[in-house]
């Protein structure tokens, strides 16, 4: 009887207990759903994408292996090089601005003031709303005739005619970068704020007693303590800016004169409306070396963290 009560209540329990004998086995069982999923929908497509880059696949027609032909034609394609230049310009300019302004905003939010929580919550809003929808708002803000910015500047008598935000090469580049920075600042600021809050005020107090100026305290305390988290945040920021698609697709579709075309938008344009899946995939694959650089950067950023934070976590 005792035997029955011990085994009968839940067959499932004895099943789990049996498997639970080895945590390696149960570990792999628990890991299985995620692993299968990621292998099938992430690793496999990644490999398929690389393979497609070597084929002349078009929509509705399976391609054949053509070796490096896609890459060779890209090498000789001046549009491709313009797009690479645009992408690097866009990424570098937007990342520097996001970092500078984001760090500044983080330092401001770290100050003691009334409604601090409110400010912190409100500042993150641009990052929360769908990019496409805020980009549509920017589209209207950058309207060539009825731009509110032009209107305000004309009212202040700074300019006499509306600015052609998205119709002129330099203006269009500046406008899309501004919209990207607008959306990216909150992410940088809030992440860096979390890093700032781990810096003990006593360090600043000690430095002040030793006669350090504000700038010196920032340069020799805040910045070094923050550098590991800066490395990670900026890696993410660079990664997402470099592969940006939505903002350009909404605001300019790459124009004017392809001056705002990025690698992701060119890849989409060639592959989906253009139908050359192979060529589009080759452009996407061409982004990978840049991304690997960013990931290595992140990895070393993470490595340094342990000793710099003194086992804070």
């Amino acid at each position, binding site marked *: 009887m005792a035997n029955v009560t011990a085994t009968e209540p839940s067959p499932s329990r004895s099943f789990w207990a049996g498997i639970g004998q080895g945590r390696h086995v149960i*570990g792999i069982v628990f890991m299985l759903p995620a692993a299968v999923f990621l292998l099938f*929908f992430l690793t496999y497509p*990644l490999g398929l994408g690389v393979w497609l880059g070597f084929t002349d696949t078009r929509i509705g027609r399976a391609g054949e292996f053509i070796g490096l032909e896609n890459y060779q034609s890209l090498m000789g394609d001046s549009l491709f090089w313009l797009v690479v230049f645009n992408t690097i310009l866009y990424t570098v300019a937007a990342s520097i601005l996001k970092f500078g302004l984001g760090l500044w905003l983080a330092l401001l939010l770290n100050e003691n003031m009334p409604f601090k929580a409110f400010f912190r919550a409100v500042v993150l809003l641009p990052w929360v709303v769908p990019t496409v929808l805020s980009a549509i708002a920017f589209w*209207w803000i950058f309207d060539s005739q009825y731009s509110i910015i032009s209107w305000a500047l004309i009212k202040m008598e700074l300019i006499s005619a509306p600015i052609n935000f998205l119709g002129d090469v330099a203006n269009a580049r500046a406008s899309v970068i501004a919209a990207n920075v607008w959306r990216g600042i909150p992410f940088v600021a809030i992440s860096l704020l979390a890093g700032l809050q781990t810096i003990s005020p006593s360090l600043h107090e000690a430095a002040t007693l030793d006669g350090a100026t504000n700038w010196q305290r920032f340069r020799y305390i805040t910045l070094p303590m923050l550098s590991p988290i800066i490395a990670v945040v900026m890696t993410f920021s660079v990664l997402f800016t470099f592969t940006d698609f939505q903002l350009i697709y909404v605001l300019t579709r790459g124009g004017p004169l392809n001056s705002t075309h990025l690698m992701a938008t060119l890849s989409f344009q060639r592959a989906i409306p253009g139908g050359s899946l192979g060529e*589009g995939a080759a452009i996407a694959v061409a982004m990978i070396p840049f991304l690997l650089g960013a990931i290595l950067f992140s990895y070393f950023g993470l490595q340094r963290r342990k000793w710099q934070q003194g086992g804070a976590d």
Partner: protein
Amino acid sequence: MTQSSEQMTDNSTGMSYLDSLPRRLITVILPLLVFVFVLLFPFYWMAITAIKPNYQLTDYNNYSPLWVVEPTLEHIKYLLFETSYPHWLWNTIYISVAATIISLVTSVFAAYAIERLRFNGSRWVGLGIFLAYLVPPSILFIPLAIMIFGLGIYDTKLALILTYPTFLVPFSTWLLMGYFRSIPFELEECALVDGASRWQILIKVLLPLSVPGLISAGIFSFTLSWNEFIYALTFIQSSENKTVPVGVLTELVRSDVYEWGSLMAGALLGSLPVVILYSFFVDYYVSSMTGAVKE
């Protein structure tokens, strides 16, 4: 650096008490207000345009663009009753919820296996998850489109429900790994000694303690799904299966006449659900964002 006596009492946070009030006004409050103004202005502009009657929309001479007289619900009414907007909203909710649930369940098991069971090679799997998190959708959408075609689920909601977890699972797993790490190991040891199985430990000990982490991962995943664009643009063709971001952009923009009122109303309504969710869970949101960066 002068000490002002009235602020001397407030030495709770850092050394802000060392700055005088006028100085703080210039160096802190003013720049902060400028930041907040710039970051929030597009939302105001979105909202004011959404309720402006058409005749005021472009008439800057007779009406101030910054304000609205006789606000109208015409644009919102048009959106809700004469376009497929309600469909798109429903699709977005349906897809986001489904993708979030799938990702959350798989991520809990994966994170528990990597962080607590520490099976052979779990370290490498953890690193792999982190790397998977760094693979951007703009690289994957072309091969995924081919797979979606091959599986015969092109232009269905299932296509998005199955592909969104490619970026949600790595993120949630990474986040939950960090969260599980913060829960004392001893609790599980006690349960093990008392004869609990791994399954029971996960369900009855670890998960109840991880509710904040689950909420963080959940709302963040929901928001990421809601905001996703490139997959939804590529894998969906028919109007009734589109999500809000794609629908607003591809269906409300017609020819050369931009109907800014209804476009802005669409953008505003599409942002509202995530903003409301965000306003309820600000702290979870912040912790999931910074958690993913810090760990």
